[in-house]
């Protein structure tokens, strides 16, 4: 079974990303279940999504069980470390939004991840999305980069198919260009 956690802050498109990941697995013939926090935490708060491949389970990944942790924001990824184990694959977006009233340092968190997880990848989705002038699309930028690097086993065609199924036609056209550009340039 594959258990995936996506952690980030409200407004980063966490939930949409988890929808696309669900669709990707479903298109490969798997049953999927997922859960997400929305509402009060929607804007500016922590948002965690769980994607579980398999049907006869609850929607929340138990402690220490996640196979993959995707961090759209570094300190939010740190918040979810009780869900992973030493063999988990960790993918972090190089973006740090310090929780207010904390002395949390980006470097300290990165050092912790580097020391504890042999399978750690850092991608610069935030910078790339900003460079491509769609700062709000760091979610799909992140997914595209992860797949392009072979971290998740989905092709460009599969990504586009899933995006088409999940997004509105207008949003799809925007994201299609984004995915194409990333495959060309990065």
């Amino acid at each position, binding site marked *: 079974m594959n258990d995936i956690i996506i952690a980030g802050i409200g407004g980063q498109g966490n939930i949409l990303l988890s929808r696309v990941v669900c669709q990707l697995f479903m298109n490969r013939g798997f*049953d999927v279940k997922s859960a*997400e926090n929305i509402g009060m935490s929607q804007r500016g*708060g922590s948002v965690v999504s769980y994607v579980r491949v398999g049907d006869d389970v609850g929607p929340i990944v138990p402690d*220490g069980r996640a196979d993959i942790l995707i961090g759209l924001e570094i300190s939010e990824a740190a918040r979810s*470390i009780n869900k*992973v*184990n030493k063999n988990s694959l960790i993918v972090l977006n190089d973006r740090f939004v310090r929780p207010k009233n*904390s002395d949390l340092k980006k470097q300290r968190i990165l050092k912790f991840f580097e020391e504890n997880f042999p399978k750690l990848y850092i991608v610069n989705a935030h910078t790339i999305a900003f460079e491509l002038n769609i700062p709000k699309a760091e979610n799909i930028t992140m997914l595209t980069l992860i797949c392009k690097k072979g971290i998740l086993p989905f092709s460009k065609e599969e990504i586009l198919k899933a995006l088409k199924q999940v997004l509105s036609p207008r949003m799809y056209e925007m994201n299609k260009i984004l995915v194409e550009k990333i495959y060309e340039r990065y």
Partner: protein
Amino acid sequence: MKKVLMGNEAVAYSLFINGVNVAVGYPGTPSTEVIETLKNFQDDDFYVEWSTNEKVALEIAAGASLSGARTVATMKQVGLNVAADPLLSLSVVGVEGGLLVFVADDPGPHSSQTEQDTRNFARFCNLPVFDPSSPKEAFELIKPAFEISEKYKLPVLFRMTTRVCHSNQSIEFEFKREKRKIKGFEKKPDWVILPALSYKKHMELEQKLQDMKKELSAYNKVEGRGKIGIVSGGISYFYVKEAIKGFEDLFSILKITVVHPLDEGLVLEFAKDKQMLIFIEELDPVLEEEVKLILFENGKFIPTYGKRNGYVQFAGELDVDKVRDIFHKIFSDRRFLAKNTFTDVLQTPKRQAQLCAGCPHRSSFLIVKYAAKGQDVIFTGDIGCYTLGFAKPISTTDTCLCMGASITMAQGIKISDCSKKVIAFIGDSTFFHSGITGLVNSYYNRHNITICILDNLTTGMTGFQPHPGTGKKIYGKEGRKVSIESLVKGIGIEKILVIDPYLSFAENVDKVRKFLNDEELGVIVFRRECANLKSRESYFKINQNCSKCKVCLEVTGCPAIDEDENGKLFIDSTLCNGCGLCENFCRYSAIEKVMVK
């Protein structure tokens, strides 16, 4: 077709497929997506709307149902309190076309004032309640829920919790709508509730509950043959299934989907050969109490573990690890302990929910705060995004109780602590939901308070639903627009001020200060579209003039402003919405505008 559906979407799809004719609700997390999904469907015998509040919604549903339509009223658990009046009477009056009351409970709670349990409401108002465990199950239960409602002529509660509402599952189904003919309203003395009729109908209601027990029992089921019995339902059922992995032989599960009314037969059959019973459920011990009562009435004694003897928590959510912890406590078996390598080593502090960058409410709160400086003021708050006005450094919300209570609590405070100035804050959607009656009361009874209506032209917290002040109906089509100013004037209040919180801060403070000078009842409307509804035209950055005085950050608390590891202030160019509020507080011309290409 096969589709990944969120629990609420699954409910909406199933409602439409099963011929719902009228769908009404008021938005509230975690219930909102049912109506949001239904609005995408169209048919000549289907109507959907956002109503002004839950009581209105349920009464519309009641009228439609008496005319023979299949109907649903959707709300969150605290919304059910608002709709409690019609619901309790409707349980006595009864229905004609199937009527479902969809209620989303919020254990945790994630975004609610209370953790109340709608299963208890079902016991309270004598109605059957369905409690699905997954989106797929919710999808499948809508049809029988309608059928039960129509067969027994009673409303049926369809209760889900956040983790079912907001989880997604792949579901295979045929998208084909069942067409039903609506027979129309038939006059009957039954529809007029009077005390004598109410007594008669109450007896009938009790009989109906007895009659439907066996039929409803079919939706409950037993799994496994172990001697340790677990009684569970809702999302907790899946936590149990995962927690007993590897030990399945020891356990058997009684999964209860319809907890009220509960059939004795199934419970007694299940308990027959059990060494003990463990109750795993969130919120109130409803399964525990119902099952224990049946056992007691039938002279059976079995050791039990649940909330009543402290093994299961009353407050908050459960999960697989918490359920394993409960088993560990009961059996002292270390194999149930979670294998957790990492706990919160970095001690990541809680990220407080806060008003978005560029939120017009931040500015409105600060205008009032500055205008009232030096005076003894109490600020009453209300339910919505702007409840976050309590957070530092804005700190202009001293109370928050329930929808509409800012206006009425302000009056109570003014009566009892009359030396203070009392200022109430309420959002536009909440004002229409339940602020108006309080406003009428303040005029009628001469309560001299100031009411600030924070009008961001949408229902922001739940995802931008329209309301009477927007004039847009659910599909975006033109409805009629209710003008807040005309409404206030219509009541008789003449002291009104309308302010754009994005315009000059100093001028706005001046205007509000003058407004607050006399003690008369008055209304200030702060009007500016929610920052999330418009794409930004500019954002701001901090240049080399910055003296690191941090006033911009400390006054506004804007989430886009922060200091880096060297104590240098910066504005996060992705988060900033270009409202320019911070610029008002910078004495060094260090904040400059960048236009978006």
